[in-house]
């Protein structure tokens, strides 16, 4: 592809191989880490760019740091691509802004009425209580979260109850990139220690470790004796998913919209036509149609598991 406009840095939404990339300022350092050095043009939200009679403007999507919706306007007709988004303001990613348009292209990752998120502060509280319980029992709390997006949020909760936070290499690397790029206000990201084979096993006891999903169930985890594993993901809303992954705790913390938020967002755009991408496309589009909003499904490559960069096995 010659030109790519990137909504956000997750690997199912950003691929190498294009000549030119357009993204938000905050997304660039992430792309540099994940894809390498390419021609990145960056813009601020609400700062239009003009190509061949088409105006492209980015707006905050609230999914992860730098995540953006893409508004495309041509001869008065407005289309908006949401990318991955959530409506709750997590304090890190910028607050989602509904953008008025004729056609809205939305994700539907959790487009099923069983998915209802609790407010972030409540989930953080649950995580903190769990960590405190583990500390009292002398256990190590291992929290599983994507290195981009989820981990930064989890750290907000963890830093209130633990000074000593260890992190898997993938999480540490992303952390460093974000610190260096000075995207977040000072103090948002706490100090974390990278997990290496030099660290004695006793050092982890009673402390907190953050690791990506790819590390769960691998030999890398064995160094934490007496560990309690908590998975942070919207999928934890359903018991079956938590049991299948053999977690000791599941926290339904998500960077995507839940059912009600998807409906509110769609309504807020005032769109007459909606295209539904990855997730529960057929359910969501059918519901929209029955509610009087014209909707159709779109097949994309989005929505496959976020691929974490490969870690050094010797770590």
């Amino acid at each position: 592809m010659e030109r790519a406009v990137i909504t956000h840095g997750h690997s199912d939404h950003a691929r190498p191989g294009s000549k030119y990339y357009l993204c938000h300022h905050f997304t660039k350092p992430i792309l540099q880490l994940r894809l390498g050095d390419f021609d990145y043009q960056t813009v601020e939200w609400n700062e239009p760019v003009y190509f061949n009679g088409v105006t492209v403007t980015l707006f905050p999507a609230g999914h992860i740091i730098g995540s953006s919706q893409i508004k495309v306007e041509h001869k008065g007709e407005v289309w908006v691509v949401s990318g991955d988004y959530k409506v709750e303001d997590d304090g890190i990613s910028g607050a989602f802004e509904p953008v008025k348009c004729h056609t809205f292209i939305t994700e539907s990752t959790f487009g099923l009425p069983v998915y209802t998120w609790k407010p972030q502060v409540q989930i953080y509280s649950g995580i903190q209580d769990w960590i405190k319980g583990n500390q009292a029992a002398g256990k190590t709390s291992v929290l599983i979260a994507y290195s981009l997006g989820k981990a930064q949020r989890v750290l907000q909760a963890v830093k209130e109850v633990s000074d000593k936070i260890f992190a898997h290499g993938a999480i540490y690397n992303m952390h460093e990139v974000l610190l260096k790029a000075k995207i977040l206000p000072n103090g948002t990201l706490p100090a974390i220690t990278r997990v290496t084979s030099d660290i004695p096993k006793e050092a982890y006891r009673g402390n907190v470790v953050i690791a990506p999903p790819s590390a769960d169930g691998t030999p890398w985890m064995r160094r934490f004796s007496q560990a309690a594993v908590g998975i942070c993901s919207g999928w934890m809303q359903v018991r079956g998913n938590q049991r299948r992954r053999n977690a000791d705790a599941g926290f339904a913390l998500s960077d995507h919209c839940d059912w009600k938020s998807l409906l509110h967002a769609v309504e807020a755009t005032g769109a007459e036509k909606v295209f539904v991408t990855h997730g529960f496309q057929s359910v969501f589009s059918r519901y929209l149609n029955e509610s009087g909003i014209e909707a159709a499904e779109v097949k994309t490559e989005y929505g496959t598991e976020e691929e974490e960069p490969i870690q050094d096995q010797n770590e």
Partner: protein
Amino acid sequence: MFAELVYRLGTHTKTNDKLDAIIKYFAEAADRDKVWMIALFSGRRPRRTISGSKLAVWCSELIGLPLWLFEESYHTVGDLSETIALLIPEKSQGSDKSLSWYVEKFQQMEKSDESTKKEFIIQSWNELNSRERFVFNKLLSSTFRVGVSQSMMVNALARTVKLEPSIIAHRISGNWDPSTTPFNELLNSRPAITDHSKPYPFYLAYPLEQEPALLGEPDEWQAEWKWDGIRGQIIKRNGLLFVWSRGEDLITDKFPEYITLAEKLPDGTVIDGEILPVRNGQALNFNVLQTRIGRKNITKKHLEEAPAGIFAYDLLEQNGEDIRHLPLQERRQRLTAIVADVNLPVLVLSPVIEFHSWEQLAALRIQARNNNSEGLMLKRKSSSYQVGRKRGDWWKWKIDPLTIDAVMIYAQKGTGRRSNLYTDYTFAVRDGDKLVSFTKAYSGLTDKEFAQVDNFVKRNSIEKFGPVRTVKPELVFEIAFEGIAASNRHKSGVALRFPRMSRWRKDKPPEEINTLEDLKKMLEIYGK
């Protein structure tokens, strides 16, 4: 409090954590709730008061969403009670009413009309928090199951009341009504009312996973055929006969032909054996019994075409005395004498297999299917009759299952632990140009393999029929099964027993799978 316990048992993966949660409940809960908890955890469920489909409709109405959307949610969540619990908005911190209050309400409501039930259910849904709603629904639909083994609960109880686990196991077995049995009486060492129908806990064997020679000398062991029927305990006490299944259901009514035993067995006799279709002292294929198992009323035709007998293999009580502590050899001698005395065709002594070497026994084992057995049982001659599944003295050595190579043609999402994953598959064999479905299977693969197949299904589905997707017939699996029988309810004409996927044949193309002919041949050899 009960809902919290259920939630914790659902999330904790480690046995000790689960045990701690149960012990905590026993320490804190009221006696009436403890009794119900024991009842529920040992499978004594209150009867279903309302159908799942009604609950689905009422829930959809309450939340103002169309029924099709409820059903889609259900297919993803994989559990009706959980689906409802998640869909209804959380308005309350929780109810202060106890477990026993709810269970007793359910019992009262059994006789109420539908609108009364509906009112109570909707009110409760609104009053309960999400975890409580989940348990409430489970109890209501009589689908309450918890991932706690009987032995774990018995161990927790043992620690709380300071009694031996084996004694507790015996106390909570048999017929007792949770609504009328106080906690103290349940566990009392000198119960006020003696229940003379009470069965002993069954002794269960571990599968033999090592070389039999490692067990020791052949003459220390008693070998028998492992019978493929219904494990049962026959009790004759105070002039009455009771027949218990392994799952502790009283099934005396299902076997009217045993009435002759009621007269001839001496009082105070308890026999452990296998209920089988029997003719002329020989065990028939289990399929023969299938025709009458599910039936409420046993007709004369059933008795003629599928005569049931008992293959006795152990004696637990004689003359009212508990003899489980005696060595097997001694119990066997006494059993042999009793069976000879009774002398009725309905009571058969399970034969002991003479063998001088393990190799000889292994050769005999291969012939198991010829006499309608599943393999061999190995029992240490000096052992006592123990409680539950214990390692060391009783081993089961089953023969290899039958297998067939088939291609997957449909997939459906699983339930419970498998929710949201396509793990429920339909398989087909070739019949000329066509593919004929013949079985479903949903177990036997590792989590990783299920994830891979789930991925395939999502990328290769052709059509959607409700929750079922048809897929490109490309994935070949070896299906293992214990038995095969003729069935006019299936297109293929056969029905399999305990089918599961034993191997993913990534090396075999769909063109090389087995044919319908192959299945029919197996039916001829093994199904009649």
